[in-house]
């Protein structure tokens, strides 16, 4: 077994953050290219500008958007993963160093004093969501997310009688009102059930799924498809400039709900749908996927 050190993990994390910020996942790029061939006029100019921008960013290794976001790390950790207890500290250090080296925009501000910590770390940030699994492997999903799209998140606590029919209506209305603000074409993450915090958490986690990949339950997959079509009929379009590409995809995740509640969470991700995965295998290798 090859021996990896904490420094190796930190280095890989910085590399993965840089890749996430400078190169768009292939599935997103494919969807944007397809949309650019479909749109006309102002919408087409927006998509062509986005594609030009992505090319420059990946070629020159610079962040595609100046809002490099706040980072969330989703970790699926084997309980026997050797670096489990050190991981939080390693991630924090990696974010600090990545901020300087790439560089990223310092985005962590104390909500009361307004003071920027300068290194993208602070109270509870970067945010880490743990999931413990059996074994000695570990997978880390990195999700940097900008403020413009995050500001367009929504939560509705619906009457269970109204259920998903009402949710659909509210989601479509919300996306119309948001217009160009979340930087469409977006990816809509929707969380249903659980509770207020759980549905929003699921909505954000749904963004980890690749564009074009449907939920494995047929009925949910159908709802995703239906909502995608419905939203793309609103005419919001790329950057709110009109057209038929308002979302690149809709991803739904759900949890069982309390009989009295029907919580619906919506989290939008801008076209710069940046994400990266790191996998630590049991034979000691680290892979960036």
């Amino acid at each position, binding site marked *: 077994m090859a021996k990896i050190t904490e420094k190796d993990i930190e280095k890989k994390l910085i590399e993965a953050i840089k890749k996430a910020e400078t190169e768009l996942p292939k599935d997103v790029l494919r969807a944007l290219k397809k949309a650019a061939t479909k749109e006309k006029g102002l919408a087409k100019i927006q998509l062509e500008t986005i594609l030009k921008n992505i090319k420059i960013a990946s070629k020159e290794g610079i962040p595609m958007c100046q809002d490099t976001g706040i980072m969330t790390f989703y970790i699926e950790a084997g309980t026997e993963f050797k670096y489990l207890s050190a991981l939080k500290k390693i991630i924090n250090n990696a974010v600090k160093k990545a901020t300087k080296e790439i560089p990223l925009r*310092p985005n962590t501000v104390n909500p009361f004093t307004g003071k920027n910590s300068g290194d993208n770390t602070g109270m509870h940030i970067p945010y880490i969501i743990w999931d413990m699994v059996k074994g000695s492997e570990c997978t880390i999903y990195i999700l940097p997310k900008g403020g413009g799209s995050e500001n367009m998140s929504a939560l509705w606590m619906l009457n269970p009688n109204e259920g998903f029919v009402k949710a659909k209506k509210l989601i479509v209305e919300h996306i119309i009102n948001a217009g160009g603000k979340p930087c469409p074409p977006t990816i809509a993450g929707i969380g249903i059930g659980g509770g207020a915090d759980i549905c929003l958490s699921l909505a954000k986690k749904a963004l980890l799924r690749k564009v074009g990949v449907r939920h494995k339950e047929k009925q949910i997959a159908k709802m995703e498809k239906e909502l995608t079509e419905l939203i793309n009929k609103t005419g919001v379009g790329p950057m709110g400039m009109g057209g038929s590409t308002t979302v690149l995809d809709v991803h739904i995740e759900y949890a069982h709900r309390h009989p009295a509640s029907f919580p619906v969470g919506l989290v939008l991700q801008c076209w710069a749908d940046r994400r990266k995965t790191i996998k630590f295998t049991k034979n000691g290798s680290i892979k960036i996927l």
Partner: protein
Amino acid sequence: MKKLHLRTPLSTKDIKKLSVGDNVYLTGKLFTARDETHKKMLELKKKGKKVPFNPKEMALFHCGPIVKKEKNRWIIVSAGPTTSSRMEDFENEFLSQFGVKMIIGKGGMGGKTLKALKKTGAVYTHFTGGAGALAAKSIKEVENVYFLEELGIPEAAWILKVENFGPLIVTMDAKGNSFYEKKKKT
């Protein structure tokens, strides 16, 4: 829908010929200002103090860039627009106090700003959200930076020299037309 190349300082004549839907490429100077910078500059004006640069001869860019310092010189790494509606509360006053002729942002602005654009003879243009790397390519030089110590990198006023900065789509013109109002109605 015209395609135009303009240069700062922008004249009243330049602004008058712009209509909603036009596509502008700008050469000259911009200054960045987000919420805090707007407040700071208005506060200085209110106290009768001078703003350390001349906003009138530049375009106002709603942007919080990524910067780095190399050999004592600032370099813009990535600099796309930020959401303009956050500035809606004070943009009308900002326009009349500082005589800015062109705003560059994303997402558009509201009725108060639209009225002020007409009154002061200015336009709002939309730059593609998130296109920070492309924008940085057209920024040739950081001429200066103000309020950096006090407000931090994203909020400071960065004075930028640009060449063919765009595409900037005119979405609110000086004649009272707004792409956003029109779109809302449909």
